């Protein structure tokens, strides 16, 4: 005589399986979302770092050859180059860093200058962002020419 064989699942088993599947897919969705967000923010960090490095490199080259540096306000710096031309660096309200040379040619680095401000001392331009250590950018000409009268 054959024993009685169950021919399906109980409602409890089905509900438990469905609950586990829901939890599993919710976790999978969250992992997927985190991966996408991480990828995007990682790309943003790289882009900003690259833009910032590019702007700082250009600013360093300009200041290195500066005969005089003035800061009319904390969001702009005027650099008198050794060849007599004047370069103007400005940080606009959209936090773009803009460089304008004597021929009014401009270069722009987008959205890198949040909270940036300029100050100057005897032979350098200081760039602060209120978060990290201020960057002191030295003028080779002013540094070597010694203290000003």
């Amino acid at each position: 005589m054959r024993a009685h064989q169950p021919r399906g699942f109980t409602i409890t088993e089905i509900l438990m399986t469905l609950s586990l599947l829901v939890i599993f897919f919710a976790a999978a969705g969250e992992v997927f979302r985190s991966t996408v967000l991480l990828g995007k923010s990682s790309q943003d960090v790289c882009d900003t770092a690259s833009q910032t490095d590019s702007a700082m490199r250009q600013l360093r080259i300009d200041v290195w050859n500066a005969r005089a540096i003035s800061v009319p306000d904390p969001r702009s710096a005027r650099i008198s180059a050794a060849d007599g031309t004047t370069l103007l660096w400005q940080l606009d309200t959209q936090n773009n860093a803009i460089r304008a040379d004597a021929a009014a040619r401009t270069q722009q680095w987008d959205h890198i200058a949040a909270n940036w401000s300029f100050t100057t001392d005897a032979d350098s331009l200081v760039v602060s962002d209120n978060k990290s250590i201020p960057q002191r950018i030295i003028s080779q000409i002013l540094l070597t020419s010694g203290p000003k009268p």
Partner: protein
Amino acid sequence: MITAIALMSLSAMTLTLLGTTIFNQSRRTQMVCEDAQLRQFLIAGATFALSHIQQNSTGEFSIPLPEISADHSAQLTVQINPISPSRITADIEASIPHHRLDQHLIFTRENGVWQISQARLGR
């Protein structure tokens, strides 16, 4: 099974992304430190060039560096070229393994005193 494999792939992607970002940022930090060190060398080279120009000494010089720098095979060379009696150029190059920086200086003589009139930092 497929979902589990997909989840593991996603986790691997996340870890790879994190690793890449951390590696890039640490390399950037290292580059910034090395750049700062090289600029210090260039400033020292400019002072060296100025003192030699004041003594009418021209030619190519290799400047001995402090022990801490020499350990890392750092080199600083200065080449001084007279252009005219009142104008001299100096090319200064600082290097450490895998990284170098240079500057081109123009010295002019005004009222008997040599001074830097242009300083072009290399890229």
